[in-house]
């Protein structure tokens, strides 16, 4: 197997700039609230109903409202692609269920483990990131070439 690069879709600069924005966002959150910017954690905690200290929901809602505003700006600048579902719907739903379940079980996803965790030199996040990257690449290979 040899690697062939897709030069037409290659966007190193945009991805780098986007990455820097994500980095600044996570620094801002830990500086202001002392929290890890991890979406599965933030969303999962909002779904809890039994655990309600004073500030449990508020900052998370503010944070998600920030994401909401970013999509308005992104939409205004026509940066957001169309989301069409072309492949088998049931498989995709099963896949997304795995995303939800797995990120809660593994205490983090791409933002919490692969950005914040690695930046903090957390061995725990390194193990998590290597694991989901490995199964990600492996699954993509099997799923898009043999199934």
């Amino acid at each position, binding site marked *: 197997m040899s690697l062939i690069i897709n030069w037409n879709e290659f966007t190193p600069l945009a991805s780098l700039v*986007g990455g820097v924005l994500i980095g600044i966002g996570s620094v801002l959150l830990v500086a202001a609230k002392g929290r890890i910017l991890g979406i599965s954690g933030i969303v999962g905690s909002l779904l809890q109903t039994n655990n309600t200290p004073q500030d449990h929901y508020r900052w998370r809602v503010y944070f998600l409202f920030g994401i909401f505003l970013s999509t308005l700006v992104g939409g205004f600048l026509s940066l957001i692609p169309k989301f069409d579902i072309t492949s088998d719907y049931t498989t995709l739903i099963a896949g997304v269920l795995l*995303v939800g379940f797995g990120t809660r079980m593994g205490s983090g996803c791409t933002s919490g483990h692969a950005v914040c965790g690695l930046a903090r030199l957390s061995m725990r996040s390194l193990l998590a990131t290597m694991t989901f990257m490995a199964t990600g690449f492996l699954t993509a290979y099997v799923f898009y070439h043999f199934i």
Partner: protein
Amino acid sequence: MKNYLTLFAGFLFGLGLIVSGMSNPNKVIHFLDIAAIWDPSLAFVMLGAIPVAFLGFRWIESKHKTIFNEELHLPGKNHFNADLFIGSLLFGIGWAITGFCPGPALVAFVAILNLGNGSFKATSFVLAMLVGMLIHDRIYKHLMKRR
């Protein structure tokens, strides 16, 4: 002030996902599927995000306080368990099948509802992700506790 900074963190994070291409499931799949014509762009997201986050976390963690002199709520770095590994493993599978991780799924959800960027069918993705989270937090965790 704290809340507005939190909101701005969410805004930058969301914008970063959009600008970098992370919120485009096809781009994610073209990144994970190295056996097809490969688009390595998304590696640049981590390249942009991690150094920025590294410096920011080092600053805050050496202060042991937020900029408002409040406690940090940061997870440990060195505890490993089976859940961390298995959860990450499952997440990687779902991520490769769908091209969605939690943050981009939220962006897609808002974009579809707000801007009509895609079928209503695609919004069921995010709902399924939330269901996956709830299955873990409400059912799986309790079943494990009882054993």
